[in-house]
């Protein structure tokens, strides 16, 4: 904990993350104004005491929209990271446990293949086939997370398999699955947490991009990316419509990246130099 406070990037990162996660949580119970009610009389108002971030072209309060949008962004990115971990980590562990075997080859080659698809393209293709929705955005982003976690887990697990305590466990008669669960997994958790933060921030960017082009969450669900898309034609009349949602995305992603960097330094000092 002490290290957490003394690290240069962890504290601002954690603060930003808490602010946005807090906003999303609060929005579940309370928002300053109802985001589904249109109030044309109050449209495109500049920031004021009543509306700290102003109102949009339909008179909706931008702060409230951002709070609800935070929920969408965080939910999509979090579930996508979950999918990546739940599928990727076991695959990585299995591949490392049987290094060089046919399953290892198949897992790693499939991974290479998914890597060859730019993530955005997977998303575009999935939404083209199954229709645009937040759920399909989650699936699309989640699929791309799988090889990231599988590769990371495999790489880290491979070095662990040559450690003495793993040898000892093998001599004691433990099977590969049990060793992976009891000895390998706990030792790769730190790495997974750090990578999870990074994928989380990438997920938020991806969700924003997808909703911006209309392939993410659909109306009436508020989303940062769609707020930006809606503001595009009004940008010369009311720049604040574009500035606040953009800042929200920027600060959330920045916060998560800083937190990830800080956690990495804290949890695994050896990595400090290796990563860029």
């Amino acid at each position, binding site marked *: 904990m002490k290290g957490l406070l003394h690290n240069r990037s962890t504290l601002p990162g954690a603060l930003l993350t808490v602010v946005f996660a807090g906003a999303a949580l609060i929005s579940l119970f309370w928002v300053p104004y109802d985001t589904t009610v249109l109030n044309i009389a109050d449209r495109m108002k500049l920031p004021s005491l009543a509306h700290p971030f102003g109102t949009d072209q339909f008179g909706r309060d931008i702060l409230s929209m951002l709070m609800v949008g935070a929920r969408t962004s965080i939910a999509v990115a979090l579930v996508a990271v979950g999918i990546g971990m739940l599928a990727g980590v076991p695959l990585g562990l299995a591949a490392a446990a049987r290094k060089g075997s046919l399953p290892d080859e198949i897992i790693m*080659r499939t991974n*290479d*293949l998914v890597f*060859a*698809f*730019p993530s*955005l*393209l997977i998303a*575009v*293709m*999935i*939404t*083209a*086939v199954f229709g645009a929705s937040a759920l399909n955005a989650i699936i699309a982003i989640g699929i791309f997370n799988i090889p990231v976690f599988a590769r990371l887990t495999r790489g880290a697990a491979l070095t662990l398999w040559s450690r003495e305590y793993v040898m000892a466990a093998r001599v004691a008669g433990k099977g590969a699955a049990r060793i992976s669960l009891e000895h390998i997994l706990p030792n790769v958790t730190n790495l997974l947490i750090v990578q999870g933060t990074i994928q989380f*921030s990438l997920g938020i*960017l991806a969700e*924003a*991009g997808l909703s*911006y*082009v209309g392939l993410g969450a659909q109306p009436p669900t508020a989303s940062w*990316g769609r707020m*930006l898309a809606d*503001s*595009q034609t009004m*940008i*010369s009349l009311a*720049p604040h419509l*574009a*500035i606040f*949602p*953009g800042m929200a*995305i*920027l*600060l959330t*992603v*920045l916060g998560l*990246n*800083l937190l990830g960097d800080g956690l990495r330094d804290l949890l695994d000092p050896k990595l400090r*130099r290796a*990563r*860029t």
Partner: protein
Amino acid sequence: MLQYFLKRLVSLCLSLVAASVLIFLTLEVVPGDPAAYMLGINAQEDTLNALREQLGLNGTILERYLSWAGGLLVGDFGTSYTYRTPVAELIGERLWVSLPLALYALILSTLIAFPAGIWAASKRGTLADSGVMGVTQLGVAIPNFWFAMLMVLVFAINLRWFSAGGFPGWEDGFLPGMKALTLPAIALALPQASILTRVMRSSLLDTLGEDYIRSARAKGLTKGQAMWRHALRNALIPVLTIMGLQFSFLLAGAIIIENVFYLPGLGRLVFQAISARDLIVVESVVMLLVFAVILVNFTVDLAYAWVDPRLRRRR
């Protein structure tokens, strides 16, 4: 080297086959009949039949795949349902916007990242280093389509230096075309330049810690001389790999940026095709982009092995 090349070539072909199967199957699982999906619920039975015939939907799944993949091999991507023109022709036209855009962005990103990364590494631990790294943190976190919108606001709407969108075509000359691509290229390049700066810096710092740099310094070279003559060349290897990967991200990332600037590139083609349910176009553009990515990675792998002979043996 020849053996390595052949091995990589086989792996390249396998990846392409696997990718084509994957793309084909994804579009095969469209719920129900693709022809009905494309034409909507009010389609007449004879129109549906005609489209099925045109799409070759009456054969078995293997026949359909082979005819599609065989067509790809000879550059026949099929005919677009909405544009009524060969898909290859459509893609050919759009490629003249997307490809220069990606290249332009790659050049910009390199021009920014190399000096910035080298400067930060040579000033390690100073305020300048922290400043560069801070800017790259912002560059990675900023959504590039939002940055693009802000640039339109400032440089197109307020200052009127650039147009807010659209593309005049290359017929009007090289410079107007490049001018129309400038803001999109900057927006595309920004996150990539930030990543590349960080890679350049850390790779250079790694090589600067090597024994041969110490030997070079002991021989009497100044810090700058050791860096320019010895460290930089070796530090470039990982940087080149990242650049190779980035090119594919730039091609794919252009999908969104093209929409911000209403550029008639592959990205806009895909989105128009999605809203028109023109699956053949979606399928072909995705396949083409994936092909480009796999090909670039292949080339980077070869370049890598050529520069660093140890890699040929290791794999």
